[in-house]
C-alpha cells in the first residue's frame, strides 16, 4: 500500500533522510519510530506530497504522489504533529469543510460526519467553536476528520503528543477499530513505545535519516535481547540525547528563503 525505495531528502548540505526503503501492506498498522530529528516528519511530509523527495521513489496505492498529486491526496488522510483545525469554526463546520475539500458527496458527508463525531464522542459538542475545545478533544476531532473521506491510508504524526493516558487509550481504541472495520492502512509515528507495542503490526526504527531495524515488536525485542520495546529502541538508537537543532536549522532555512526571494 505504501512503498518507499531509496528515499532521500537533503536540505542544502544537511541530509534529513538518506536512502530509506520500506513496504507497508494493505490494512496494516505500521509504526515509524525514531528519536527527535531522526527524519520521521520529513518522511511523512514526502509521503503526503508536502515535500518533494531529492531522490528515490514513493508509491501510494500504486500511485506516484509526485506525479499524481491530486489522485494520491484523495487516497490518504493525515493527522499532523501540530494542530491544523480552524479554531474560529465549529467542530461540525470543520468536518464539513474537510468533506467538501475532499469531494465527499453531500449525503455521504452528512452521514459520515454524524457517525464519526459520535464515535469520537464529539457529537454533543458539534456546534461549539474549536477554540473552546481541550487538547484531547481537538486531537479526536482531527482524527475523526482524517477518516471522513474514507481514506485508504491514514498518516498519524505523533497523534498522542501531550494527551493524558485516558485520551491516548481512547484514541488508539478508535484507530484500531476503524482499522479493523474500514481496513484503513495506518502509518504512525510516536514517542510512546508502549503505544507502538500495543497498536502496531509492524515497526520500523529510523535514526540519523537511516532505517536501522524493521519487524514486529517481538522480532525487535528478540534481536536485541530486550524485555520491552523501549529497551529494544534504546539498544538500537543508543542512549545519547539528540539536540533539536534540526528545527532551528529549518527556521534559518526559511529565513534564508524569504530574503532570497
Amino acid at each position, binding site marked *: 500500500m505504501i512503498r518507499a525505495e531509496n528515499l532521500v531528502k537533503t536540505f542544502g548540505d544537511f541530509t534529513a533522510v538518506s536512502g530509506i526503503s520500506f513496504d507497508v501492506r494493505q490494512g496494516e498498522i505500521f509504526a515509524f519510530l525514531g528519536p527527535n530529528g531522526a527524519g520521521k516528519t520529513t518522511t511523512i511530509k514526502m509521503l503526503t506530497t*508536502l515535500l518533494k523527495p531529492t531522490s528515490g521513489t514513493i508509491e501510494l496505492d500504486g500511485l506516484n504522489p509526485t506525479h499524481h498529486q491530486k489522485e494520491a491526496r484523495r487516497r490518504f488522510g493525515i493527522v499532523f504533529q501540530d494542530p491544523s483545525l480552524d479554531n474560529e469554526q465549529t467542530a461540525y463546520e470543520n468536518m464539513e469543510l474537510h468533506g467538501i475539500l475532499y469531494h465527499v458527496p453531500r449525503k455521504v458527508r452528512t452521514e459520515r460526519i454524524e457517525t464519526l463525531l459520535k464515535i469520537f464522542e464529539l457529537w454533543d459538542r458539534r456546534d461549539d467553536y474549536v477554540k473552546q475545545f481541550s487538547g484531547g478533544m481537538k486531537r479526536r476531532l482531527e482524527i475523526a476528520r482524517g477518516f471522513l473521506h474514507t481514506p485508504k491510508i491514514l498518516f498519524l504524526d505523533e497523534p498522542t503528543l501531550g494527551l493524558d493516558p485516558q485520551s491516548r487509550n481512547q484514541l488508539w481504541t478508535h484507530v484500531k477499530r476503524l482499522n479493523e472495520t474500514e481496513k484503513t492502512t495506518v502509518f504512525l509515528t510516536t514517542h510512546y513505545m508502549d503505544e507502538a507495542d500495543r497498536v502496531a503490526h509492524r515497526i520500523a526504527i529510523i535514526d540519523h535519516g537511516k532505517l536501522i531495524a524493521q519487524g514486529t515488536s517481538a522480532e525487535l525485542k528478540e534481536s536485541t535481547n530486550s524485555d520491552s520495546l523501549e529497551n529494544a529502541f534504546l539498544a538500537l538508537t543508543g542512549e545519547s540525547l539528540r539536540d533539536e537543532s534540526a528545527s532551528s536549522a529549518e527556521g534559518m532555512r526559511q529565513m534564508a528563503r524569504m530574503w532570497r526571494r
Partner: protein
Amino acid sequence: MNAVYILWLRELKRYIRSRVQIIASLGQPVLYLLALGFGLGPVFQRAGAGSYVQFIAPGVVGMSILFMCVFSGISILWDRQFGFLKETLVAPVPRMSIMLGRTLGSATVATIQGLLVFIVCLIAGFRPHSWTAFPQAFIFMAMVAITFAALGTAFGSIIKDMQGFPIIMNFMVLPMFFLSGALYPLSHLPAVLTLITRIDPLTYGIDGLRGALIGTWHFSFAVDVAVMSGIAVVFLSLGAYLFSKIQL
C-alpha cells in the same frame, strides 16, 4: 468550484462573527473623515476647492477597503501558525482554487466594510451628487477590493512571521494610501509626486470612486476601469503564483 465556495464562506463567517473587529476597524476611517475632513475643511474651502468632507469621503472608503484586504491577506500567516493552512494545502484541490476562494472571500469582506464606511460617511454629512451613481461606485469598490485582496494574498504568502507585517504596512500599504490622491487633489502637484501618484494602483481606484460619487474625475471612467482591470489581473496572477510557491 465547491472548494472555492467553502473557503469564500469561511472568510465571510469569520468576518461576521468578529463583531468587535468590525466596529474597531471602523474607528480609523471615522477618525480620518472627522479629524481631516472637518479639520482641514476650512482651508480647503478657502482655497476654492469646495467641501473637503465631500472630497475625502471616497478616499476614506477606498482606504478602508485597502486596509481590510491587506489584513485578510495577512490572515494566511495566522492559518500558517495555527496549522489550518496545511489542512487546505494537502487537500486534493488545486492551489489555485484555494487561493481564489480566500482572495474572493477577503474581497467580499472588504467590500462590505467599504459599504459600512460609506454609510458612516453619509451620517457624517457626505452626499453623493446623484443616487444613480451608486452602482458605478460599487463597481469601483469591488474592483479595488479584488485587486488589493490579491495583493494581500501575495503578501501573506511571502511573509513567514509577524515581524514581516510592519515592513509591509510601512513600506507598501501606507505609502500606497498616502500617495494615492485619497487625501488631496492630483492636479498641481510637484512633478515627482505627480509621477508617483500615477504609478500607485490605488490612485485609479480612488479616482473612480470619487468620480462616481461626486462627479469630478481626474482621469475618466474608461481610464480608471481599464487601469484597475489591468492591475487586478497582474496582482491576481502574482498572488496565485506566490501562493502556489508556499512551502510548509
